[in-house]
């Protein structure tokens, strides 16, 4: 999908033109202080058609999807949905902020894990994610990061070493296939 404000409206079920730039979204965002482009500025960039800057920023990958912005927007703009849409468009158009790669890898690994097992196998997730993220970012420390926690987690019975799988995994596979049939985003 080519980025356009209509595309964002469609993906986020909202009207970005309604935004009057009050900034309440940015004021309440728990990660606003870390964002290179504030949520209200992202909405503005969409309004004015400057998609490259909107997709290329780190901010959309820092968003924790808490919905605070949407819940408080005086114009009922689904700001969190706009960020969601920008993430999807960024991946699709391959305009991804370097600092965000890890997040995307994580999400892809997450979905693959479910595609295979039907449920999340956390150990596998952590393992695969760390090796993949390692390959992409070459951030060695990350590889060992939670290994400090891992032994403790096992002693506390917090990890099933084998992980669970659903019985009808074939069906899960078919569901994924159908959802990805029309492209990686699930739509044309």
């Amino acid at each position, binding site marked *: 999908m080519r980025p356009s404000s209509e595309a964002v409206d469609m993906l986020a079920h909202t009207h970005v033109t309604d935004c009057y730039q*009050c900034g*309440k979204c*940015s004021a*309440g*965002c728990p990660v606003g202080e870390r964002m290179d482009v504030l949520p*209200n500025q992202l909405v503005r960039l969409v309004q004015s058609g400057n998609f490259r800057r909107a997709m290329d920023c780190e901010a959309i990958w820092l968003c924790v999807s808490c919905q605070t912005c949407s819940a408080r927007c005086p114009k009922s703009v689904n700001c969190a949905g706009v960020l969601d849409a920008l993430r999807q468009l960024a991946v699709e158009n391959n305009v991804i902020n370097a600092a965000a790669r890890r997040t995307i890898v994580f999400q892809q690994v997450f979905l693959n894990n479910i595609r295979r097992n039907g449920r999340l196998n956390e150990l596998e997730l952590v393992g695969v994610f760390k090796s993949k993220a390692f390959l992409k970012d070459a951030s060695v420390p990350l590889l060992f990061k939670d290994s400090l926690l891992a032994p403790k987690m096992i002693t506390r019975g917090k990890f099933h070493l084998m992980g669970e799988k659903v019985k009808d995994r074939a069906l899960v596979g078919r569901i994924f296939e159908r959802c990805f049939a029309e492209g990686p985003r699930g739509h044309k």
Partner: protein
Amino acid sequence: MRIGVFTCWCGENIARHVDCQKVAEAIRNLLGVHCSVDYKYMCSDPGQSMIREQIRNGKLTGLVVAACSPHMHLKTFRKAAEAEGLNPYMVEMANVREHCAWVHHDREAATAKAIDIIRMAVAKVQQNRPLAAIRVPVTKRAMVIGGGVAGIQAALDIADAGFEVVLVERDPSIGGKMAGLSETFPTLDCSQCILTPRMVDVGQHPRIKLHTYSEVEAVNGYVGNFKVTVRKKARYVDITKCNGCGDCWNKCPQKKNLSEFDFGMGKRTAIYVPFPQAVPARPVIDREACTMLLKGKCGICAKKCTRGAINFEDQDQLITEDVGAIVAATGYKLCDIGKDEGRYKGYGEYGFGRYADVIDGLQFERIVSASGPTGGEIKRPSDGKTPKSVVFICCVGSRDDAKGCGYCSKICCMYVAKHTMLYKHKVHDGQAHVFYMDIRAGGKNYEEFVRRAIEQDGAEYHRGRVSRITEHNGQLIVRGVDTLVGEAMTIEADLVVLATAMRPADGVESLAQKLNIGYDEYGFLSESHPKLRPVETNTAGVLVCGACQAPKDIPESVAQASAAAAKVMMLFARDELTREPEVAEVNEQTCAACFSCVRGCPYKAIDEADITDRQGRLIKRTARVNPGLCMGCGTCVAICPSKSVDLAGFTEQQVYAMVESLV
């Protein structure tokens, strides 16, 4: 019928595309037409003289002038006919200029159409009946509802012009919001200093009758002749006996009631005058707070009163007032953002009602007011500390569709600037912060005023909305944003003042229904035309002014009040009102009493009535039009299933004759 038809050339205007001689010729042979002439300028003096001569000599009983639009000259020709003794309603116009000669260039087709248009008019005139203008007497006495600055101004203007005024105020005293304001923008003059003399004028005016602690119960009648029922609520104090000495309220043990006048920032006794300059300066007993009225115990005030003015047995009274015009001036209230109210949603994120030091603009007015609960010293409600950092937040509840209120309240940008100045003038080492979206200061000296707040008094303005207010160790933490620098920001404040939305006073919808006037989706009363009839309503004789019509500041409220008063005086300048007689009438014999018309009439001009015989026994029920109220829209005619209503001037016969003439 002897009808004269006069076709005008309008110089070249009509004659260029319509063959006027041919038209006159064609019309001459129509049934009922006595004479048909054409002439260069019908509306000119010689033209009118010719028509009058023809009426006289030809003994004409009907007249058709084929010329311009009736909106242009129908009145002219009706006057001319009247001067000759012909009933003006026997005159019709055929619009052969705007609707024909000016829009069709094919001379033959235009001429044919002109003939058709005149034939329709002739057909109509044949069915016309002489009508007499309806005359209604005018009661030269006005009622003003609401005693804020707008109501006060309107009442004084009308009374000073020599007419009697009945002023109905819901609260125990007149004065409205202005009585509680501190100093007023853009001049910073003391609100009470300029208002109290006006209030005293009202109290002492020989032609103003004041009903305080009263509300309008019912409105009947029509322009010039309203009958208004007023409910005088039980006050428990006979204000004719009371001299306002204060012995009662000084001794009342129930001292902990929140003062309405101070917007809950101060306390009052159960028997109280709302504020020292109240008019009338007579107390009232709060029936929800007085232990005598609640439990039959106490009665101290009655014992202290040497004039025997206290009456615990007092009851509500209903009074009827006859008036010729009504001015609604019921003002506004600030929205309560602490809770959801119908379509309006609360602002949980700002903690109003939860944090004592988050207050609204009117509460701040009381804190800075010299007559306020803190004596004009700025102290915050929670602990009486002087706030060193105050955050003012604009557009709270206004311009917020998600909370149910999309409009701009118009005055808050100004009073916020005022508040920052008053604060700085009293707390020199304090800092005022303002969060705003846009600054709307479009009045004389307004922009300059706001700039002064920023440039001279150092208020810090941040462009952006606030998302959340939290509290930590008695400090309010305000999380906002400055979108101009693109940074979220947090300010620690001792006090937060919210510029909350201005909304119409409670109960205004039900009052509007009684007055049969419109109101918008937010409850503000509707003017008849936003530009050309800004204080009139669609009901003749009912005017609006002040903040009940839309958010307004004092200058605008007062200007509107004087405008409404002028409209009332225009009405009272005449002894009788004449109204167009083109009103509906019910054929009571055939009326099936279904009362569809009663429900359909936009002016509530039709009543249900009984027809009785001489013994008073019911013969039948019927609908009956009140010609004083009917505006002649014709809705009832179209609605009536038994064809029992007709509209003079546009009767079934007239309209059908016109259509039939088109064959």
